[in-house]
């Protein structure tokens, strides 16, 4: 346990630096954007141009870049991401409202891709070079080449338009009045296609990683030793080969969380799922750069948190982690 805590503390310090860099980056992008918050405000409200200078002054926009960065940081420390021009509300509130939906979508996609992907990977990797191994690894390579947004359209054509098994879009039936389990089931039905579209590429990725990892582990000496001890093939495959090959997949779970957040932009837009990704697309469409950068910042924080969780999980799965530091 202390091993995991030690690791966590070190990662936490590193993460703070990383987030600071991200903040400076978003600030620079904000500065690079044509016009400033006042312009955007005027465009959206058609307000009095005479007020411009006064507003610039009161928002601190007439000060030096360094001062503005300091102000920006100060505001962020107070969890103030600024005002969304497009929604006329604080950016923080808009984002927090959309966050849970994206978390559900990502959680379900991750569970699908990791669960099914590693299971199929174990099935393929249990017999390297067998027919099923070759078929699955070819199929996964093909799947890996499929862009999520296009898969989404194909799934919509087949399962929503033709077969009518699933709704075409949305997060839940509007004003259905459903509660509790019925509501959860309704949401689940709406999310089948988006979750699949978002997760399939990672399913292929985990499948490939698992079978490749298992192929490596099969060659290691301790597997020969396990065989010499007469363990059943099933035990060797699951408790030793797959168990060892699982570790890099867990690392990838953290690494790909950023990619999945990016992927959710198109998927949520296609299925009108009111999450963070859809919000990013709306921010672009409504030219609300501060909102878009707020989303980026929150995404980065989310990615950092997910990676911390993954690091903890990894420390529990791999007893060697942090061993050198703990003893040093």
């Amino acid at each position: 346990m202390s091993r995991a805590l030690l690791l966590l503390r070190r990662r936490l310090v590193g993460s703070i630096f990383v987030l600071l860099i991200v903040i400076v980056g978003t600030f620079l992008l904000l500065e690079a954007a044509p016009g400033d918050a006042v312009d955007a405000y005027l465009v959206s409200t058609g307000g009095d141009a005479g007020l411009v200078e006064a507003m610039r002054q009161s928002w601190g926009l007439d000060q030096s870049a360094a001062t503005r960065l300091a102000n920006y940081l100060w505001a962020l420390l107070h969890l103030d991401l600024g005002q969304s021009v497009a929604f006329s509300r604080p950016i923080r509130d808009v984002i927090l409202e959309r966050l849970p939906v994206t978390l559900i979508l990502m959680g379900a996609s991750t569970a699908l891709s990791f669960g099914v992907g590693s299971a199929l990977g174990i099935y393929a990797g249990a017999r390297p070079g067998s027919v099923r191994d070759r078929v699955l690894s070819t199929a996964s390579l093909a799947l890996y080449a499929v862009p999520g947004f296009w898969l989404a359209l194909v799934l919509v054509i087949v399962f929503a338009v033709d077969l009518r098994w699933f709704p075409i879009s949305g997060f839940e039936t509007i004003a259905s009045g459903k509660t509790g389990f019925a509501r959860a089931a309704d949401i689940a039905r709406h999310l089948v296609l988006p979750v699949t579209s978002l997760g399939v590429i990672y399913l292929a990725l985990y499948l490939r990683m698992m079978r490749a990892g298992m192929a490596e582990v099969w060659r290691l000496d301790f597997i020969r030793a396990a065989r010499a001890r007469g363990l059943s093939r099933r035990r060797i495959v699951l408790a030793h080969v797959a168990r060892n090959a699982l570790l890099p997949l867990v690392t990838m779970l953290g690494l790909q969380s950023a990619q999945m957040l990016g992927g959710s932009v198109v998927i949520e837009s296609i299925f009108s799922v009111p999450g963070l990704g859809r919000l990013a697309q709306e921010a672009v469409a409504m030219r609300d750069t501060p909102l878009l950068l707020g989303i980026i910042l929150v995404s980065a924080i989310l990615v950092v948190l997910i990676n911390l969780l993954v690091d903890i999980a990894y420390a529990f799965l791999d007893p060697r982690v942090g061993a050198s530091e703990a003893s040093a």
Partner: protein
Amino acid sequence: MRRLVQIPEALVGLGILAVLVVMALAAPMLFPGDPLAIKGAPLLPPFQEWSLPLGTDRLGRDVLAELFHGARTSLAVGLAAAAAAIAVGAVIGTLAGFAGGILDETLMRITDAFQTVPSFLLALAFVSVVGPSLTVVVIAIALSAWTGPARVARAEVLSIRERDFVAGARVIGMHPLEIALREVLPNALPPVLALSSVIVASAILIEAALSFLGLGDPNRVTWGGMIAEGRTVLRSAPFLSIVPGIALVLTVLGVYLAGEGVVEGTAVRKGLS
């Protein structure tokens, strides 16, 4: 090269890429003029009219012509973005690995930061701030794609740094920067280049997604844009979204297969020598 041909997957991949390159190069000759010009009645189904084999889209544009010109965009963006990402990543990684200390630490934290931000969101923000054009899309993609090459290059440099020829260069008094870029970088390059197929593929996919959201270069045909166009008539003419999507899948698959084949082929050669 001869060995490559013996790996069937690589052969398929190279075949797909060859077709693609031919399509891209031949597009202006086979389909001269603006591919976005209207050529016939709108929503003509495929295989109906001899002069428009794949039919027309919602505005009456020649789908086949669009497909050919789209290959140009996809390949151009994929290759340019990957080249930029690998060049930038290799230089940054080499500097970090060679310099060590504070510079290394700083560069690696910056790399971390770029990997923490979802690359698609970063590309989205960059294009929407600067405005869409082919160059901007390329930069937007390279902006987050350089991190992988940087990490690999750094790891490679760390292992090369202490070898004899580097020590030799130090002894004859070469400037450290010169050593880093002229002696170390070229030796660190092969494993970095092994990443190129993955980077090209993901660049093509990101470009397609950007175009799909309407953030591609508005003056060019893109497969992503075609898919988005077709989406508005998804029920009546699903074909319009499906065809460019298949082109996209085949392209990305071709890049992966060829890339894996090359890596495998070089591994075989190394194993034999």
